């Protein structure tokens, strides 16, 4: 167990290191950040001085070394735009993104799994065909467009939901969370629904595929040969087996949600770190972009790790190695 943990830790660190190199290289070769900090009419001397201050006059390797050290210390420098530590900016906005992602995932699971189980258990029924057509549509939709349609219908046309922004927040453990207020829920519904659709469709399809796959297995027939009802066999024997492949992609789906949140936050002006990233890209606010990427890389790596552990807990055949 300990050996496995150590191995994974090393792997994760390696991945993060590779990401840091790539991020650094990309950032170094794109644009010259010195122009972000000096005024337009700066003289050459002022520009050179700014370069020195930012450490941009040194060799790439040295720059990377500095980059790495400050990274490890958690110091990413100040945002060029806000003149505040980039890390703080991102962390402030993280709860907003996290709550939207969580609600979207909960929605996706709540709808996808039951429908997927039904569609897998009764593949030829009319309803199943409709469900499957719907799920195929779900993965064909451009998410941002759906968000726009929802805004138009529910906010502009019918005025039932707000079209943008985050609702009131209440504080819990020092974090500002909008899920604790009614207004918060009122504001989160449209963005969360928009975000959830793609994942919902994929989870539904995987659940259905899993159920159909499991239906072919011998142990299902054997359970029936014992005298169990069809229903019992489906849910008690089949479901858990069918959901194993779903768990495999769960981590990836969570990652996808975080990624697509950037777009959703942009449409709904949701003050999360995704929106901050997009704004920072427009404004070439390098430190913020770097923080976002490294943080998100860390989150993904951790999610994958947790999923692997969960996987071994569900399937007794899999052992950690």
């Amino acid at each position, binding site marked *: 167990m300990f050996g496995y943990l150590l191995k994974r830790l090393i792997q994760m660190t390696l*991945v993060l290191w*590779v*990401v840091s190199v790539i*991020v650094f290289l*990309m*950032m170094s*070769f*794109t644009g010259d950040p010195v122009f972000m900090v000096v005024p337009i009419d700066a003289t050459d001397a002022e520009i050179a001085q700014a370069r020195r201050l930012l450490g941009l006059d040194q060799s790439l390797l040295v720059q990377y070394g500095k980059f790495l050290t400050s990274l490890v210390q958690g110091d990413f420098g100040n945002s060029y735009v806000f003149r505040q530590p980039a890390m703080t900016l991102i962390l402030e906005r993280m709860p907003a993104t996290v709550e939207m992602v969580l609600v979207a995932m909960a929605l996706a699971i709540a709808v996808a799994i039951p429908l997927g189980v039904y569609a897998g258990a009764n593949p030829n029924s009319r309803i199943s065909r409709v469900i499957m*057509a719907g799920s*195929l*549509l779900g*993965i*064909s*939709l*451009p*998410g*941002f*467009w*759906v968000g*726009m*349609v929802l*805004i*138009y219908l529910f906010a*502009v*046309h019918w005025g039932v939901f707000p*079209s943008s922004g985050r609702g009131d927040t209440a504080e819990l453990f020092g974090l500002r969370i909008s899920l604790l207020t009614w207004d918060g829920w009122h504001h989160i519904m449209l963005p969360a629904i928009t975000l959830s659709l793609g994942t919902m469709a994929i989870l539904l399809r995987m659940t259905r595929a899993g159920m159909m796959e499991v239906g072919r297995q011998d142990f299902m027939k054997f359970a029936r040969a014992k005298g169990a009802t069809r229903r019992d066999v489906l849910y008690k024997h089949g479901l858990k087996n069918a959901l194993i492949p779903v768990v495999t992609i769960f981590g*990836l789906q969570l*990652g*996808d949600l*975080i*990624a*697509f949140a*950037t*777009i959703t936050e*942009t*449409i709904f002006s949701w003050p999360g770190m995704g929106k901050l990233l*997009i704004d920072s*890209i*427009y404004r070439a606010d390098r430190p913020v*972009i770097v923080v976002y*990427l490294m943080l*998100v*890389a860390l989150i*993904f*790596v951790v999610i*994958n790790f947790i999923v692997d552990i969960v996987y071994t807990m569900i399937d007794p055949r899999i052992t950690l190695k």
Partner: protein
Amino acid sequence: MTGFFRSEFFHNYKRSTSAIIGSALMAFFAFAVLAGPFLVAQDPYDIAALNLMDSYKPPMWLEGGDPRFPLGTDGQGRDVWASILYGARISVFIGLVAMIASCTLGTLLGLVAGFYGGIADAIIMRIADIQLSFPSILIALFLMSAVGTGIDKVLIALTAVGWVVYARTVRGSTLSEIEKEYVQAAKVAGLSNRKIIRKHVLPNVLTPLIVIATIQVGTFVLIEASLSFLGVGVPITQPSLGLLIKNGFDVLFSGLWWTSVFPGVAIMTLVFGINLFGDFLRDELNPRLK
């Protein structure tokens, strides 16, 4: 040719509603992309042809609509329907070209990894694994933010994201093929690696590649649309469907919905058609289910 029409594939195709609808949609788009611009009176990107007086006309079935512009016009007086046709060209072009590039690159890398193994395999697969643990949209977004906008840059970003699935599939197929005895025999007989690849490995890997490639076009269309929507995709001078939606977003809150909704419907229909057909292909070409 007639052999094809008598094959089991075609027989199942005829019986599958989704396959027929899917391929019909794809054909429609192919036609629209190729012939479309010739069918529409107005070239929406010819400034001279535009009339600001025609701006923001709603679709023709609504009050204030104009039959010249069946789906309405945008802020510059551009016909939405014409814009969609031109935009679809760009979206489809990007999707197809990126798919071809990804497929070529990925297959090549997969073959190298599977065939030569060793350090090449290790490096290629490591990169693939790392890439796969991150959502493609994020990687594409990041790349675009670094290299700037433009169709060529979009193609590069999409290729960088899309090669992985081909490489893995081809590598897997290659590995299992070279284990097989007839390949070992061929090697002993002195057949060159290239011949072995061409005669034994590629034919077996072809069917999953076709399925992946088909569906990937749709995936790329969606990713490109998202990138363009965020402003890091195609340039304003060559608006894809995604960019059209972005342009329409700004006026959505004033109730002018048609400039953004219809391009979205177009994307949705195109990708839906591709997925319908792709699903059918997958079921048909999958030997395991037979």
